[in-house]
């Protein structure tokens, strides 16, 4: 797969990250070498092998429907950049 500038910009946008042109160039090259490295795996014939979705072999790890484990609002807001002590505040996402 060939990594190009548009792809880097698209990935940056999806991750909400901002880069300078210089950084973008560096990222393009880094990503290209990472992807080429991983693409090596494509040479293995995996016909008939199910994709490995989960690293653990555990299945059916379910819990009973019991209310427990909530924290207080004060605790919940300890790391929040902006609150009014009741709600989390984020930059306005809708323009009126």
């Amino acid at each position, binding site marked *: 797969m060939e990594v190009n500038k548009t792809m880097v910009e698209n990935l940056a946008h999806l991750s909400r990250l901002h880069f300078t042109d210089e950084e973008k160039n560096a990222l393009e090259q880094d990503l290209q070498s990472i992807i080429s490295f991983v693409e090596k795996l494509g040479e293995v014939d995996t016909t008939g092998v199910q994709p490995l979705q989960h690293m653990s072999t555990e299945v059916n790890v379910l819990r009973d429907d019991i*209310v427990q484990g909530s924290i207080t609002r004060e605790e919940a807001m300890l790391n929040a950049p902006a609150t009014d002590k009741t709600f989390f505040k984020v930059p306005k996402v809708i323009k009126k």
Partner: protein
Amino acid sequence: MNMTADKYEVVIGLEVHAQLATASKLFCGDSIAFGAAPNTHVSPVTLGHPGTLPKTNKKAVEYAIKMGIACNCEIERYNYFARKNYFYPDLPKGYQVSQHTTPICKGGYITIKTENGGTRNVQLNRIHMEEDAGKSIHTMDDEYTYVDYNRAGTPLIEIVTEPDLHSAEEAYQYVTEVRRLVQWIGVCDGNMEEGSLRCDANVSIRLKGETELGTKVEVKNLNSIRNVKHAIQYEVERMIQMAEAGERIIQQTRSFDADTDTTFSIRDKEEANDYRYFAEPDLAPFILSDTFIESVQKSLPALPQALQHKYQNALGLSEYDAAQLCMDKATTEYFDGTLAFTKNYKAVANWINGPVKSYLNEHKILLEQFGLSAQQLAGIIELVEGGKVNFSVASTKILPVLAAESNSNAADIASRLNLLQVSDTNELEAWVEQALENMPDKVKEYQKGKKGLIGLFVGEVKKLSKGKADPKVVTTLLEQKLNK
């Protein structure tokens, strides 16, 4: 307009999100109760803190299967969740955990009523599980959006139809049926005002005979059944006008304004979103055994359409009566309960659909809050059917008293309030004579041939007897006297 509209076929697919009626969230133990103070039903899992691990709520899985069985779906045995990645402040983790690509229920159908009085199966594509997002409030501040994460992580099922609905009316019937079904089997409270049930509609039009689907518009967050209907009506009309004017319909996401019954664009969706789905590594897959699925199936109550069929065919009720009873499960349970004490099926149906329903409406209470037991209702019905009390006295005088006295029975109330019907001829004759004396002019008119006046005389006797006179005997006595 109608002539023009006839040229087009409307194609609608609906996505209904139903919040499952569990106690806790899909992947952690926060309560999902509606109406709590903002940001009090939250935990590190809900808030997406690093290092936290989700764990799937078994009850939510059970409820999803329940709905799948009720909708005749195929139940997937091997299940896992995936991450749907996107940024929005109401989604703390930056991804929604969803079964979008590998649904727990596949195919199936929901039967709806059609406009000509028949029924039709609306084909489902799938039902899958996913978590709800938090709630954003945009109106509290000019600079900030306020977010409440109580709802984040609430278990949802998304019920997705094939593009198999063809009018606003069909969509209305479909959502009505979904709502009845989820309430009936107890997987969701169906409360659209509180957002427990929400609907998105994908609407497109095409010329009749065309096989390819037209460009679709998605109308989001329809929070009442009425809004589903009105939004689709508006959207169809808008699209037809555009098509007639030669304009190109573009793929859009629109929202509905219930004040004006119109829709407006919230974003153009020319290119598909890139959600980068991948299997959620933090949640182990779950494998459903036949035994587990069978146990869920056994826990399902008889479904409304099966019950209606039974009431019509086994008990001989009219389609209307049976359908009225099957509007909700509580009513059918009350009906079935009453049948343990009386075999007057038709009368029980009439009483529940008539006086009982009126009483509930008048007092603005639910059947579950109604004080009249099935046995007490059966007692009233037996009194009326046995000719001991007339229907209107029973429904207006005995029913309200009994509803407030859980230890009394209808016969006791009737004698205590002196309401038992008098069929004793001597006592009746006195009232009959009194009635005729009160209206000499009318008597003359009757004797001149105005036979319709008999009802008036019966009414007068009823009044004099305070409703206790048996109207059948009274009519006979009156006729004897008048035709002498």
